[in-house]
């Protein structure tokens, strides 16, 4: 795996500068059933396509930010700090 990622604070860097935080998932707001909790803990959508995911600039400013990336091509559509992230584009996988 090798591509560039744009840290919203620091700019364009090699992906090896960053830590991957996995696909964005929604933490249950109500007390989940045991099955729901295990699904939240252990199951990922693992889409082949555009997904929204977390990254951290580990070797840089250490900020967490969001990105949309096509998992098939590693094309990064955008990156943004959480408060500046656009709403999901149509067809984007955001786990619920």
């Amino acid at each position, binding site marked *: *795996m090798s591509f560039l990622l744009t840290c919203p604070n620091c700019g364009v860097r090699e992906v090896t500068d960053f830590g991957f935080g996995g696909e964005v998932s929604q933490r249950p707001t109500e007390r*989940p059933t045991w099955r729901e*909790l295990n699904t939240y*803990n252990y199951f990922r959508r693992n889409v082949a396509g555009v997904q929204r995911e977390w990254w951290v600039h580990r070797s840089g400013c250490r900020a967490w930010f969001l990105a949309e990336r096509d998992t098939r091509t590693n094309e990064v559509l955008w990156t943004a700090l959480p408060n500046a992230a656009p709403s999901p584009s149509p067809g984007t996988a955001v786990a619920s």
Partner: protein
Amino acid sequence: MDGAAERGAVAVARDGGGVVTRLPPQPGERIDRDRPISFSFDGTAVPAYRGDTIASALYANGRRIFSRSFKYHRPRGELCGCGRCGNSLVQVDGAPGIRACGEPVRPGMRVEHQNAWPSLERDVMSAVDRFAGPFTPPGFYYKTFIRPRSLWPLYEKLLRRAAGLGRLAPEQDERSWRTEYRRRHCDVLVVGGGIAGLAAALRAAELGADVVLCEEDVEPGGALLAEGGHERARELARRAAAAGVELLARAPALGFFDGLVPVWQGDTLHQIRAARHIAATGTIEQPLVFADNDLPGVMLSSGAVRLATLYGVKPGERAVVATTGDRGLHAALALKRLGVDVAVVADLRADAGGGELAAQVQAAGIGLRRGTTVVSAHGRAGVEAATLARVDADGRAVEGTAERVACDLLVVSGGAAPATSLLLQSGARARYDTASGRFFADRLPADVHVAGAVDGHEDADAAELSGLAAGAEAADALGRISSQDRRLLTEQRRELAARPEATAVATPPAVARGHGRGGKAFVDLDEDVTAKDIAYAVAEGYDSIELSKRYTTVTMGPTQGRFSQLASIRMLARETRTPLGDVGLTTARPPWSTVPMAALAGRPFEAAKRSAVHGRHRELRATVRWAGDWRRAYDYGDPEGEALAVQRDAGVIDVSTLGKLVVRGPDAGELLDRLYTNRMSTLAPGRIRYGVMTSEAGRITDDGTVGRIDDETFYVTTTSSGVGAVEQQFSWWLATWALDADVTDVTQGVAAINLAGPRAREILSRLTDADCSNEAIGYMDASEATVAGVRCLVMRIGFVGEVGYELHCAAPHGRSLWDAIAAQGARPFGLEPQRILRLQKLHILVGQDTDSESTPYGAAMPWAVRLDKEQDFIGRWALEHAAEHPAEAALVGFTCLGGEVPTEGAVVLVDGMPAGQVTSARRAPLLSTSIGMAWVPAALARDDARIVISDAGRRIAATVTTRPFYDPEGKVLRS
């Protein structure tokens, strides 16, 4: 047979016997004759000039054998003259696999031969060639050495000794060199510094692009440098540099990895990422396949010409040239001009190109044989003669056409194969062009352009024009081109398309043979694969290119098939009666050029963290060991004595390795409530609380203390190795929840020193004006104070079981604080005595006593979880579940009845079956017994339950304890 009776037989010393074959100075030569230097080859001094390669200097001094072949140990000589073939691999200063014809000489460099014993001239293993040759077809080793199975280890040992090229030093005291990584982002990367690459780089740079060009030779210029165009090539390089192109010489591009191109240059591995790539990688001249085509003295035309024009070395006295196109005719003329007696040119084309060039050859007094090729070389340690003949479609010499010509140099030119490896790695597809008999790269990825000979534009003018166009196209794709420049580009493309086709090249037979038995005809010199081997593989059913490659190992040697792929395809096409274009192409994998593993591994970074007090620990002769990234004092020579000193008097330990975070902001308390399993927001300023963090699955991830400094500020300590992960967790949840707080890791900036023991309070009060009474600073209180002149955060924490004060101060003052405390008689103690003391208190060490399955309930810390808090927190749901479903295993203390100390990890047995394991065990000096912690079945988690520990064959009886061994009520701690 041998050439004694040949007409014009030539005698040339072939044993490095000192016959010097330097030519008079050549225009554009690379050597500096005013700067003679010397290096050693196999212990003998070799004179050379600065600018020579190892091979050119050795050749100039009469050496003709440069290596012994991989399998048959046949003598091999110079082939390509440019560092691309595998014929001249040598060891340089102990490093194996260096290509002598690409490696410049340095004064004092120590060069040794490889793969021959005792010497290159007399190699014992060459007996394999004479005697075992016919009996070692492909697959021989697979088939022979597999039975009986039990003998394979012995076979393996012997075969490994016989196989391989070069020897690595078994041990190296110290790395003699190191490599650096360099990341370079640019607009355009041009691979190949021939005229096309230079023109492309220049044009792209002129149009404003940031351009890097890498070239594997010692200077850019490419083929033109040796073919009379050195002034033009060097001028173009100067202009490119002036336009801002970063020129990397002696820097091969190793491969194309998902848009990242590693370029190796000496001790630097450039990791180049470009928006656009231009491949101007040129062509690779192909050898011909005929009997004994591997004899020293058989040389590619480009190699012979390079040797003469760039290094002023006469490649031979009397030459025969065998060619399939104009290239050989040019070489013949060039060599003739240089004073080589070129006897005959055998041109496979029936009309020898039909043009002016053929007339020039004849006018120069060189015999021209049309429709003829070489079918056999003759000689023992080198070429002494060549047999030329007309051949039929099958490559057999036509009766009555054979002619034997004496020579000591057999120049071959089997056409030029586009160097498409990098392009194919980038995702392009190979396309066979029937007209030219070549494989070109087709269907290029969007960000890849081609220029020059690799795309079929071979002569200098066409190559330059195609380079200019490719450079403009790359700039266009970057949006850096004006409409005027775009019109120019269109014109250049039109001009390029209108250029006349290059003169025809004949397709050589897969293998040319004379009558009679004849010697081995090699398809692949790297791996010693003969034409017969491939025929044999096809006969055995390995009839696709991928299968025959793996079976015969053709193209799998150090050069990755650049001189053998085309030949193997022809051979396969012949044997399977398939058209050439249908045979297909195997993948030439990276790296393009031999690269030391050390260059890929990069420079070894071993991050070592040291506390501000580390120097003192060394002076005190501490045993220093790794603890995560930290270098830590394990003990100062007497761990049990140190532990006793803490319990009886006072001790001081450096705990600067603790992770330390400052959490600040209006929502800081809420953040901590959400991350720890207990309540932190209710802490009063000046108070401290122990806390555990779990994952969403309720498993313990870290522990530590949280102290409240003021309403909005908390000071958090974490485990020494956990701080990075904890900080990342904190900041991730902060980002997720959008809470108004921030977290700062201050671990490296803060020193922490723990003073503990019955005399700790007395010592502290002597060093500070602050009130140190139990009323003023009680257990789990925190306050700021000046201690020994150092501003500290004093935290009354007792993880070793005694009255203790943890003093946190700015790291630069750590040492003076330590000194002041030690001067009061507190005995330094290390990590090991601390483990003993902690164990007596049954304090868990996260990661040592817990693993990724441990919940606070299992770890006997239900008190650390506050399910009654209204705040949701990480792991709450899982912990609620865990509270309702008792754990199957529990962490308990144990005492060994016989005083044994079981190994950590030893198995706890129940009814003879494994049912748990020991996580910690130590001798406890004050208790005069040995104690430990273990996971046991929950039913056994009660005081005085008997357990049996199995430790490497020993059975150890122990009793369970659920309460701390020492001061279970914490009276000492709170006193």
